């Protein structure tokens, strides 16, 4: 496995510790000398950068003199809040924090691959799968919190005598959501990288920039779609039957 510079740095300093932790939980990495993969290293980098960004925003919060970072954060929260209000409805506020985290994390992962020497972790299936799994569990938990055990009535369909047919269909449908979220994000990011690499190998000057620009657009759109679908699933799960 070709290691990025950052991955090599992490494996050099924390490889042994990571190997011990993985062995402790019964996981045996394919490459014991390099237990930290490129995707995990890039995710860690995104996590650290976002944490630093959040700390910087927190230190500069002001009521009457907001700085640039606060404006950016207010803009992101406002955008996601409007989206949530439109799709989830009047009880959207508790979910804005998660949706912002999801959006910011995915967008940062998508865009970090544009920096030379770094890769998009979302171009590897395990990262979009992780985001999809977290979203899946999140909206089910919120559905249970909002509706209690009555949440399971959503799986039975509109009429009781269709329940034996509807329950398996609904279960498959919900599982398919994890699949669709994962593959949509992974395929777009992977394809964007592949196209850029192919054109870079054919015409190294000028043309790859066009595809880099396209990749930026796709990165934003895919982030928006992921967050939008999370809002839709949350709206369905937390809806109260009147």
């Amino acid at each position, binding site marked *: 496995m070709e290691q990025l510079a950052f991955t090599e740095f992490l494996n050099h300093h924390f490889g042994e510790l990571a190997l011990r932790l993985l062995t402790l939980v019964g996981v045996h990495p394919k490459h014991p000398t390099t237990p930290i993969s490129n995707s995990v290293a890039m*995710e860690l980098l995104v996590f650290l950068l976002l*944490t630093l960004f959040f700390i910087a925003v927190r230190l500069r919060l002001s009521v009457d003199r907001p700085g640039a970072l606060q404006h950016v954060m207010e803009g992101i*929260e406002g955008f996601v809040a409007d989206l949530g209000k439109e799709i989830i409805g009047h009880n959207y506020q508790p979910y804005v*924090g*998660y949706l*912002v985290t999801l959006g910011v994390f995915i967008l940062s992962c998508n865009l970090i691959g544009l920096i030379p020497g770094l890769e998009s*972790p979302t171009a590897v299936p395990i990262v979009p*799968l992780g985001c999809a799994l*977290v979203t899946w569990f999140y909206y089910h938990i919120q559905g249970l919190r909002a509706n209690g055990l009555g949440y399971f009535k959503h799986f039975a369909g509109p009429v009781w005598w269709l329940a034996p047919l509807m329950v398996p269909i609904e279960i498959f449908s919900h599982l398919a959501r994890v699949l669709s979220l994962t593959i949509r994000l992974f395929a777009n990011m992977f394809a964007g990288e592949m196209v850029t690499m192919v054109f870079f190998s054919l015409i190294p000057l000028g043309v790859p920039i066009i595809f880099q620009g396209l990749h930026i657009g796709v990165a934003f759109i895919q982030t928006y779609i992921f967050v939008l679908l999370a809002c839709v699933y949350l709206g369905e799960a937390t809806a109260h039957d009147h």
Partner: protein
Amino acid sequence: MQETLRQLGELLLGSIPTVIFMVLLYAIYTVLVHKPLGKVLAERRSKTEGAVEKARADIAAAEARTAEYEQRLREARVAVFKSLETRQKQAAQLRADAVAEARRQADAEIEQARAGIEKDKQAAQAALQGESAQLAAEIIRTVLRPGTVGGAR
């Protein structure tokens, strides 16, 4: 099938770091940014909305005072018009009384003058009658005096 399940297991295992990073990031974001930013926005909203509410209250108070002033102005105008009307009526009454008094006085003077004239007329008539008798006697004397046309020669 076994191979599919094995690959699926590998994918799920590989996604665990992402799950951990996302959960940690959500917790960090909520504690560091989401809640404090919510408080900042709420405070800003209360200051802004508080200022807007105060402005609305001031406008409402000003409008209430304006309405009160207009009401008082209307009442004052009505009182002024009523007073004016009363005075006009009084003035008209006074004028009518004065005119009647003047007319009465004029009538009295006329009567007085008429009486005077009548008296003079009667005095004149009496004087004329006396003078006419005298004149008649004088005429007769003149006519009957000898040497005149009608007298004896």
